[in-house]
């Protein structure tokens, strides 16, 4: 059925007009800028100008010293390592939280209006800007912040806890806070579509709750999990604002390096870094889609 539809679409050029609005937006705001970025990444530059050229030095500069390990890891590898670190923990925690929240909403809340209300409540934090949501943590976690005040007054600690703010902990906390919803939504959506009969059948066949989750629900939620994971991972890979603010600007991120290069007008260098970031992000996504064929599952 679906192949038949595709064919008729292709053989009816008139229908192609339907694709024009989105295709042109896609072309103007994605394909062309991306093409330009790739082109500029091969250009030469000085302090005050960029010069059309075809050189690889922007790329070789990024990987300078990366393949001789005498001096330890090079800047690029270190930065990606730190970015992967944030990516992994944010992904793992948002996945766990997102799955649990969605599971609760779908299987434990039986009335649909209540389900929708609770779901909307999850989105409330998104009514404010993400910078505000992030900055709000600072007075809470600081040396003289509320959490430390509480810990001190309860006598749990004697000195204020320093690692609460401007640390890996605070960065991951803020990222999880910002992006858990990106996990909840697609997983929630996948779970809603699971036929309740299948679950009942599993129970009837003698499965316990854990077995139902691992053998029935998780496999059927895979598309939602993968889509949520793609959202979270791509966003965290390019993030520099959260890592900057919550990390006290002391933690490396690829986005921050690109940002600094842009500020110093090293545009071809920034373009080359962006291309590499893009390639790596795409590789990660390809790896994930290898685990599951999203198109088939949708």
């Amino acid at each position, binding site marked *: 059925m679906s192949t038949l539809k595709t064919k008729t679409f292709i053989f009816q050029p008139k229908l192609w007009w339907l694709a024009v609005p989105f295709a042109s937006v896609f072309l103007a705001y994605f394909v062309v800028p991306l093409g330009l970025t790739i082109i500029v990444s091969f250009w030469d530059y000085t302090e005050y100008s960029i010069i059309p050229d075809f050189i690889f030095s922007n790329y070789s500069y990024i990987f300078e010293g990366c393949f001789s390990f005498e001096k330890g890891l090079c800047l690029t590898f*270190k930065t990606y390592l*730190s970015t992967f670190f944030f990516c992994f923990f944010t992904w793992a925690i948002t996945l766990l939280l997102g799955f649990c929240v969605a599971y609760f909403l779908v299987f434990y809340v039986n009335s649909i209006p209540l389900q929708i209300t609770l779901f909307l409540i999850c989105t409330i934090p998104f009514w404010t800007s993400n910078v505000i949501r992030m900055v709000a943590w600072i007075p809470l976690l600081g*040396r003289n912040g509320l959490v430390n005040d509480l810990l001190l007054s309860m006598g749990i600690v004697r000195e204020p806890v320093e690692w609460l703010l*401007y640390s890996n902990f605070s960065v991951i906390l803020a990222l999880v806070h910002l992006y858990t919803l990106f996990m909840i939504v697609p997983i929630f959506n996948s779970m809603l579509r699971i036929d309740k009969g299948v679950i009942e059948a599993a129970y009837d066949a003698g499965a316990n709750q854990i077995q139902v989750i691992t053998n029935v629900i998780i496999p059927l939620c895979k598309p939602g999990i993968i889509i949520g994971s793609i959202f979270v991972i791509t966003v965290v890979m390019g993030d520099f604002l959260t890592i900057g603010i919550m990390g006290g600007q002391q933690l490396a991120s690829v986005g921050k390096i690109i940002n600094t290069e842009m*500020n*110093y007008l090293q545009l071809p260098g920034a373009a080359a870094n962006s291309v590499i970031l893009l390639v790596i992000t795409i590789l990660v996504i390809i790896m994930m889609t290898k685990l599951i064929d999203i198109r088939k599952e949708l």
Partner: protein
Amino acid sequence: MNSKGFSTISRRKLLKLGAGTTAATFTALYAPSVISSDPITLRYLGTAVSMGDEVQKKLFEDTGLKVKFIAVTTDEVTKRVLTQPNSFDLVDTEYFSLPKLVPSGNILGMDTKRIKEWDNVTSIFTKGVTPSGKKVGLQGTAPSKVMYLEGSTGKSFAKDVTQYATLVPTIYNADTLGIRPDLIGRPINSWAELLNPEFKGKAATLNIPSIGIMDAAMVVEAMGEYTYPDKGNMTKAEIDLTMKIFTEAKKSGQFRAFWTDFNESVNLMASGEVVIQSMWSPAITAVKSQGKACIYQPLKEGYRAWAAGFALPKTTKGKTADAVYDFVNWYLSGWVGAYLNRQGYYSAVLPTAKKYMSEDEWGFWMEGKAAKDDILSPTGAKLASAGEKRDGGSYEDRMGGVACWNATMDENKYMVRKWNEMVAS
């Protein structure tokens, strides 16, 4: 056209109006296109420090000029000048950006003969000495080294005085470390204190490489690790050395945070997360206004100075260019100077600004005297009580104590990379 009506109106008007405004009436009557068009609005590209609402209001009252202010960050100003020189009529930028801007040919030299107060511009800019003749440190991109162009369209700096200035100076200051005296509890007198283990986890510096590296160099020199021939133009080996010392400090947990935004530095200091850090003078004022003790601490090794000024992009011509010169002349005529001085900055033409300040204000801000009465900011907030003195003292003491200027180095690309490595370590 009704020529009869025209002449009656003009005659009647001419009788009423004074000689000064006649010309304007004349143009208005005989050039209808001017009547219909708005008064000239200058597109002014700059950073947020230099142009408040009060300034725009006063400008319109005095000259009839309007300004559309495009406020961006220092780096963004440079980017705009290089990539979109036709998007503004006038730019306010820092001297250390000039080695990037001038070779592009996107800015014109300003004709100093058209600047009324040019001869009164402080000698720090023109000669590199304070008004009383004290030599100012010239390491880095000191304004006196990049003050002139060979011609109005020159792409390189002139060695001698010429008729064309790269920037007409507007605002400048001497920067140092800010401290929380209440949380430190002992005198601080050296840049070396920034890396003193006593302040482990309570120090901060800025994550703007071109400025951060200068503060770092001041610290390294103060620690006695190395004496730079020119802090503002380091060799690769010197950059390595400087960054090595800072990387070690960072790894050992010396810094609570780095900041990129002015407000971040205020929050770090006001909340007590940080007790000593690189800071800018209005940030000190902001911390004080929250009721927290904060000192812009003078240090024995001297200050790191910066300066900004006006430039004309090559695309500004004719009437708009004339209006720009009118605007610049108005800016230097004193009212704005007083406005800047009251915020703790310095104005380029001191004698005109003095006329707009009270004796007490002048004594406090410029001469290092104790205030006789409360000292107020332009917005009316109290900055100091009677009896207090300005941190660092007089203009002569502060500007005379300048050790280096914000700079663009020859090895800028390498420096930015090494800085990023330090942040990543």
